[in-house]
């Protein structure tokens, strides 16, 4: 099956006449597929080494060279804070997943299957929702509902003369809720496809058989959509499980740890040495948990294929007339947008213009100024902006290159173990990003020769982030490649084009829209990414997101809010461009 095993084709010894086809020149065999396989393997090895170093560390006493030991695991189980973090993470994941489903699934159904006016707006807002940095919404929520200084809490206490704050955002369920509101976008995108491609005839048949509208919804529509809802559930659970921004911004200062913040706290302790061993031991468990969840996810996806709701041919979208219910539908969606997007946005902007956090009042209005902007440490900010620009260009370029190579091996080659590359490409999703960051940190500290000065460099940051983005990239290049009929490449091959000519002249041009959209999407994700830059942080590689974090944890909330607003302004044109390019709802997500 593989071309690798073939020796150089030799001239046949039994040809009778003159050759009219020029004989194959020795050494001119098709190396193309083999080179791609080698590259894909290198990428896969890099990714696996990030995990491997963590696991090795978990069983070592000091550094990577220490003798084998289980001490780290003993420490882990004795640590009440670690066990607390584990329990917290569970609560966090459950609340976040439930919230995202409650919002995302009905929204998807409304947009795809009803005659709601203004659908493209809804779609756009959901896509933008994914692009808004997690630390941004987290800040907004903290500004609104901090138990002591939260604006809305203060307003309510004053208005109703309450003895204490009615809301407390600094709790696991509340943080889970905030996370869930932003994950609703992901659920929305994943279930949209199902509702869109569902064969309307199946629903019509239910109605024709005498089912009421609700009966049809319960007995046909939802069961048909169930596999994809379940898949979306597991998918967002995996994200929530490794989420960092929200628990870091809201919970870290109050010592309310989830797994990720616990990890971060122990790598960057406020006192003492980093507890790499403990962190690695904890991570090893989380790697297992992540792989288990992903395995369940892939099982659900496979089983979902049996339903084959996609019919493809003769698809006619028919929609449910909402009638007076249009107000209910818009009320539901409007409330979601207001609560999850508009309110945090207003709160952050408000804070950015004020010297300290305070509810709206004449004095507050009087103190509005751009002091937070002019007072910024500009030298630092310009360095951060430059570093951000470097990664925003380098990361999507590298990630799309890796993704295209991996996808080609997975989708197009006939290598026996090609599926393995698909699983490896999913690792950055299955395993909390923070762990990959820790792995990179350990590699740079203990494995890579120090002369390379990789530790703390922008280069390291770009490499690790591009590997992390491979799970997004391959999802896009996979589906892009699947949509390109293999016969288009085969036609090039029988026309006399070798592997690389085929890639250059046929495959890449056909894949260009996917590559462009993917590049843009990953560029935006990179721009707002906090986790990896923070764990790999050094003064030399600070990005804007890390700058926000530094100001935030230094107590400069107003300045942090100001940079966040500026970042949001900077990313808006990119996001609008992405929306324009994917207007026919190809949306990646």
């Amino acid at each position, binding site marked *: 099956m593989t071309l690798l095993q073939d020796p150089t084709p030799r001239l046949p010894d039994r040809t*009778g006449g003159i050759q009219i086809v020029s004989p194959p020149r020795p050494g001119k065999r098709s190396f193309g597929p083999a080179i791609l396989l080698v590259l894909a393997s290198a990428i896969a090895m890099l990714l696996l080494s990030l995990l491997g170093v963590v696991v090795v560390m978990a069983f070592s006493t000091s550094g990577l060279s220490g003798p084998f030991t289980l001490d780290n695991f003993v420490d882990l189980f004795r640590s009440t804070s670690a066990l607390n973090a584990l329990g917290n993470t569970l609560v966090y994941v459950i609340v976040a997943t439930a919230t995202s489903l409650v919002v995302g699934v009905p929204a998807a159904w409304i947009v795809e299957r009803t005659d709601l006016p203004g659908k493209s707006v809804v779609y756009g807002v959901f896509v933008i929702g994914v692009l808004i940095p997690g630390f941004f919404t987290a800040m907004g929520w903290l500004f609104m509902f901090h138990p002591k200084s939260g604006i809305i809490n203060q307003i309510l206490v004053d208005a109703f003369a309450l003895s204490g704050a009615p809301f407390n955002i600094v709790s696991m369920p509340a943080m889970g809720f905030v996370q869930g509101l932003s994950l609703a976008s992901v659920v929305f995108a994943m279930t949209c496809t199902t509702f869109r491609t569902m064969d309307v005839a199946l629903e019509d048949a239910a109605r024709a058989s005498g089912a009421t509208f609700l009966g049809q919804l319960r007995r046909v529509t939802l069961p048909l959509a169930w596999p994809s809802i379940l898949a979306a559930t597991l998918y967002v659970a995996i994200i929530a499980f490794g989420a960092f921004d929200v628990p870091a911004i809201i919970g870290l200062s109050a010592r309310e740890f989830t797994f990720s913040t616990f990890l971060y706290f122990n790598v960057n302790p406020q006192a003492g040495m980093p507890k790499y061993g403990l962190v690695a031991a904890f991570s090893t468990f989380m790697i297992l948990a992540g792989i288990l969840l992903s395995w369940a996810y892939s099982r659900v996806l496979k089983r979902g294929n049996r339903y084959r709701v996609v019919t493809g041919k003769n698809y006619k979208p028919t929609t449910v007339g909402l009638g007076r219910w249009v107000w209910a539908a818009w009320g539901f969606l409007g409330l979601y947008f207001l609560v999850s997007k508009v309110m945090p946005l207003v709160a952050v902007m408000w804070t950015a213009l004020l010297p300290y956090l305070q509810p709206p009042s004449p004095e507050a209005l009087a103190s509005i100024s751009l002091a937070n902007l002019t007072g910024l440490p500009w030298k630092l900010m310009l360095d951060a902006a430059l570093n951000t620009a470097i990664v925003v260009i380098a990361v999507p370029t590298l990630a799309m290159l890796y993704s295209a190579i991996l996808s080609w091996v997975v989708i197009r080659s006939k290598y026996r173990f090609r599926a393995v590359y698909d699983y490896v490409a999913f690792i950055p999703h299955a395993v909390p990003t923070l762990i990959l960051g820790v792995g990179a940190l350990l590699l740079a500290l203990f494995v890579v020769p120090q002369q390379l000065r990789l530790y703390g460099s922008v280069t390291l940051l770009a490499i690790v982030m591009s590997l992390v983005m491979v799970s997004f990239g391959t999802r896009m290049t996979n589906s892009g490649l699947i949509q390109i009929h293999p016969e288009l490449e085969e036609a090039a091959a029988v026309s006399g084009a070798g592997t690389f000519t085929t890639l250059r002249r046929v495959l890449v041009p056909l894949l260009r829209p996917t590559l462009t959209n993917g590049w843009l999407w990953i560029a935006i994700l990179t721009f707002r990414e906090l986790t990896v830059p923070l764990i790999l942080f050094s003064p030399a590689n600070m990005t804007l997101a890390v700058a926000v974090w530094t100001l935030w944890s230094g107590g400069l909330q107003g300045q942090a809010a100001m940079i966040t607003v500026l970042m949001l302004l900077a990313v808006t044109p990119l996001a609008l461009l992405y929306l324009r390019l994917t207007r026919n709802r190809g949306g990646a997500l």
Partner: protein
Amino acid sequence: MSSTQSPVRSASRAGDDEQRGTAIAVDHLVKTYTSDHGDAHPRAVDDVSLAIEYGEFFTLLGPSGCGKTTTLRSIAGLEKPDSGEIELAGQVVYSSRSRINLPSDRRRIGMVFQSYAIWPHMSVFENAAFPLRVEPRGRRRSERAIREAVEEALEVVELTPFALRGATQLSGGQQQRLALARAMVAHPQVMLLDEPLSNLDAKLRDSMRVELKRLQARSGFTAVYVTHDQTEALAMSTRIAVMNAGVIQQVDSPRAIYEHPANAFVAGFIGRMNFLTAKVLAVSENGEDGVELTVDAGVGVPVRARSAQRRSLDEEVTLCVRPEGIGLLPPRESSTGHARGTVLSVQFLGESTEYIIRVRETTLIIRAEASVRFERGGEVDVEFALGGTWVVGR
């Protein structure tokens, strides 16, 4: 069916002068697909051997999954067989024994795909020019030569006015013709066609059939044509190989395949056929088409039929009768040699009428000229002509 020695040939393009000998030799080809879980499926191609002469229009015919497309793709180099040998124009392009597997791009073939595989990001002209543009540097023609060759190819398929259009602006039939032009532009000796007409509507299919034959006659390429449509196969081919479950059932001219199928599968796959279990009553040796037999087919009268092989007395055989090979006559009192039957149903089809007739325990489908008229429920005499009957093994 091993390949003959390839004759001396000029290096000029195909069709300039009559070439003789084997253009494509497939020798004991085997291909098994393994699923992702690693367990082996039955052989997709099971010990297939073919020798296709220059200038032939050779059709691989069979139901889906019979291995015809896998065989074609193995010839094209798009599929790597497990074992066997393939020779194109005298050159071994695949041999499991000598460990040779030439990639597709070096086999110098033309191929037309089921989906047409027209590149949407190129113009009509560029699509057709592609095989010339990717020729190895040493052999690549000048821009002018390429232009001339492409213009010629487009003219042959009557697409000249569309040369500068985007390929996606073409209709299905035009895309099909462009695919042909692209496959022919480098004048390959061997043209492989994978169900090229199956995506066209019926009318267009008929005209493209004629078109294809015309192009082949003009360019003189050797065509290997894959289809599951027996009408296409019968109409276009010089020879047909009928395949089933990876095995070649019969290789013969269209007429021979239709009139003298080698077994019940071929008989049933090509056209419609009545199958009757029968017993050999008498054997006589005359006839060029094989043995002439008299069999008892349970219709009340002995039936005369031919068979390719010798049959012994009392042997159980299958009698094959085409619907148009049975005559219907008004019932007569003293009809000897005619079976008596009852009309179960009548379907008027315009140019003919189709009857379902019950003769004793047997139900027969009979196609009669429209002028023949019988009522449902009535009695008829059924006549088996010697030319319309054929015996195969059970």
